[in-house]
Each structure stands twice: as C-alpha cells, then as structure tokens.
C-alpha cells in the first residue's frame, strides 16, 4: 500500500491524482451512461468518453508518475494512447454499421432512410 517513495514531490502527486481522477471519472460516466441511455445509437457515443480523455487522463498520470520515480522521461504510454485513438473509431464504425444493417433487414422503421428518430421499440425478438 505504499505507491510512492518517500521523497515523491508534492506537485507531482497532485498532478497524478488530478489526472487519475479525471480519467477514471470520465470512464465511469461513459459506462454509467451505457445504463442510462435508451437506444443503441445513443449509447454508441459513450465508449468514446472512456477512450478519449478517460484513457488519456490515466495514461498522462502514469507517464508523470513513472517519469518522476525513475527520474527519466517515460513515454511508452503514448503507444497505448495512439493505439486506442486509431482503433476505437474502427470498432465503433463497424458496430454502428452492423447495427444499422440489422435494423434495416428487420424492417425497423426507426432507422433512416425512412425515419430520423432511432428507438429501441422492437428489440427483444432476436435474442
């Protein structure tokens, strides 16, 4: 339970704590919204909360922490950040298109080109 050496500077600790809380808070809000929002197309916006600044905050915190404890710049967290920024759009776009395709083949009238408002009305039947 002792995460830092005794001489860990206060300013760095405050910065790390701040970024940790921002990152985890945003990730939590994103996941919490998954429960609250009503339709799939509304929920698809929420993982990006965790992948943009949710992940960013925690990665920056980790970068600051290890750079201070090892007294050299530790930047390999950038790799994860880069990887996530590149991959999240791919998976979310694929999912959105899959959902649209499924809704259309089922003749769900709440998706375009027929209507502008998406709803989860006839959802239970395929499971």
């Amino acid at each position: 339970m002792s995460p830092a050496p005794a001489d860990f500077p206060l300013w760095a600790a405050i910065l790390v704590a701040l970024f940790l809380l921002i990152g985890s808070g945003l990730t939590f809000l994103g996941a919490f919204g998954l429960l609250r929002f009503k339709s799939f197309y509304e929920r698809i916006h929420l993982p990006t909360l965790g992948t943009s600044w949710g992940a960013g905050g925690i990665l920056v915190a980790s970068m600051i922490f290890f750079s201070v404890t090892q007294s050299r710049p530790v930047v390999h967290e950038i790799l994860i950040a880069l990887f996530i920024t590149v991959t999240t759009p791919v998976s979310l776009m694929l999912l959105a298109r899959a959902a649209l395709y499924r809704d259309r083949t089922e003749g769900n009238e709440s998706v375009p080109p027929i209507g502008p408002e998406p709803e989860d009305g006839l959802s239970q039947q395929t499971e």
Partner: protein
Amino acid sequence: MMRAVLPYPLLSLGLLVMWLLLNGLSAGHLLLGMFLALLAAKAMTALQPAKPRIRSWAPLLRLFRIVAGDIVRSNIAVAQLVLNRGHRERTSGFVTIPIDLQDRTALTVLAVIVTSTPGTAWVEYHSASGELMIHVLDLREEQDWVDLIKNRYERLLAEAFE
C-alpha cells in the same frame, strides 16, 4: 536509390519509434529496430497499398489543434448529458451531410475525427453520392452540425490532401 531503400519512410520511422519505446533506447535496439523497420517496409511494398499524399502539413497541424480542443469540450458536454438527463428534453438523431472530399486518406481522417469526438458517431458513407450520415447525441439544430463538419473539418482536410 532513396525510394528503393525507404519505400515508406513514415511507416519505417513509426515502427522504429515503437520498437525503441517498447525496448528502451540503446545502440543494439536502435540497429535491430532499424533493420526490422526497413524489412517491414519492404514487405509492405509487396502489398502495394495506395500511398497517401499529404500536400501540406500546416492545415493538418491546425486541424489537430482544433480537434484536440473540440474533444475536450465535447467530453465535458457529454459528461453533463449523462449526469442531468431529467433537466431538459434531449433529442438525438441522424444527420445527413453532403461531403465533397474524394481522397481516401482525407475521408479516413474525417472518420477518425467524427467518431473519436464524443457526441457524434460516423454511421454510413455512400461514396457514389458523397453523402455521409452521422448520429448526433444532442441534436438541436441540424444545420449547425452540417456547418461544423463542412467548415471546421472538411475545409482544412481538403487543403491538406487535395
């Protein structure tokens, strides 16, 4: 000569940087990483992917700054939407936007921008008609979003790639 050794300079550089970040900076790893990066680029020529042509870097850098700011702002906006759902009736919906970009790389960058910004999601793109459909979480005025995509992102992308 340069082209034969380094067919994809950006790819090779990226691989080398990644190798060094994962293994730590030392002379041995620098050599090994360079060798692997060149080898991978050589292998890439066998696949013959269409080379992205970047005409100028200045608009890309400006775009990067704008997008970074937008992502911070929309993070805050979506977080607020999650927290106070009951205060105000929120409508979400699909918006269709006519897109003039043709370059594949430019469209890819636009897709990454639209999707990684919370609050907008790229749903469908018809390359024949050039119509893009996005889903907007907090849709107040449809025209606002069309203007945002067209004036804020598409213009800079067109400057950079076309």
